[in-house]
């Protein structure tokens, strides 16, 4: 996926609730690329270069662990917001 495609995809999936700002997206993509979590491929599209990002093997592993951490956090948050009455 390329930068603009990612912005649009996230916005579509969240029905417009989550809007990734461009000023935050590219620094994040570049950092993930440096960390080896994303790989880059350049393709010529209508006389210009387009940068496609994809998950590396390491990136795939990291996604799973981050999702697990997020789910755990949401579960903890849920416990705090909805405490069981004793």
């Amino acid at each position: 996926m390329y930068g603009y495609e990612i912005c649009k995809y996230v916005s579509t999936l969240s029905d417009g609730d989550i809007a990734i700002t461009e000023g935050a997206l590219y620094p994040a993509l570049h950092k993930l690329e440096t960390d080896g979590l994303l790989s880059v491929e350049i393709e010529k599209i209508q006389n210009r270069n387009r940068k496609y990002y994809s998950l590396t093997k390491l990136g795939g592993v990291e996604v799973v662990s981050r999702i697990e951490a997020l789910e755990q956090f949401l579960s903890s948050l849920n416990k705090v917001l909805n405490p069981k009455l004793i």
Partner: protein
Amino acid sequence: MKLTEFQIQELYTFTKKKGIEYIDLQDELVDHLICAIEDELSKDPTLTFETVFKAEYKKFGIFGFDGVLMDRTVQLEKKAYRLFFKHFIQFFKIPKLFFTISLFLGIYYLMTFSNLLEIVYYGVGLTALAIMLYNIHVLFNDVKDKSRKYLIASQYHLLTRLSSSIFYWILIFPLTVTDGTLMENLYVSSAMLTFVVLVVLISRAQLENLKTYMEENYPVSA
């Protein structure tokens, strides 16, 4: 609705004016703007190119492209250093470890001849420094196009830092701080020279890789 060639050029000019000199970043940001503007104009054809362009640029926040540029510079430098250490570690793993050991033993052997000690030490140190400086020279002279030069700026920082380290740790430190006694410790001085040779070899390989990457993705005519 597709943008005209003139409008695309206008976006490139604007991006350059905003200080984006990295050719890859220019391509990425211009491509983003083109996609966003074309999308908006398709949704509402009554809008003008200028209006949509301004609105899309605003989405980059109050710092505009500056934030993206600053971050890209830091990340490129980080990447250059990480690649360097990745290559460096390879020389301590099989099969390259054999080369490192042979290199160390070769230098050590040469330095056991007391009349050759200084010649070998300064010969290797100065040659390494000369090659590193030559690499920096080649790096900038090979690439005439300004926008391509910025892409390799990160390599320039790495090379200059490595060169100044060689200059200090190999040529100045042993004489000024240890008063020449460090050089006489053959294990330490052979290890230092082995390290220097590895630095030169890795820098050379990294430059070649970068050159190939640029030739493949950003040919001069682009």
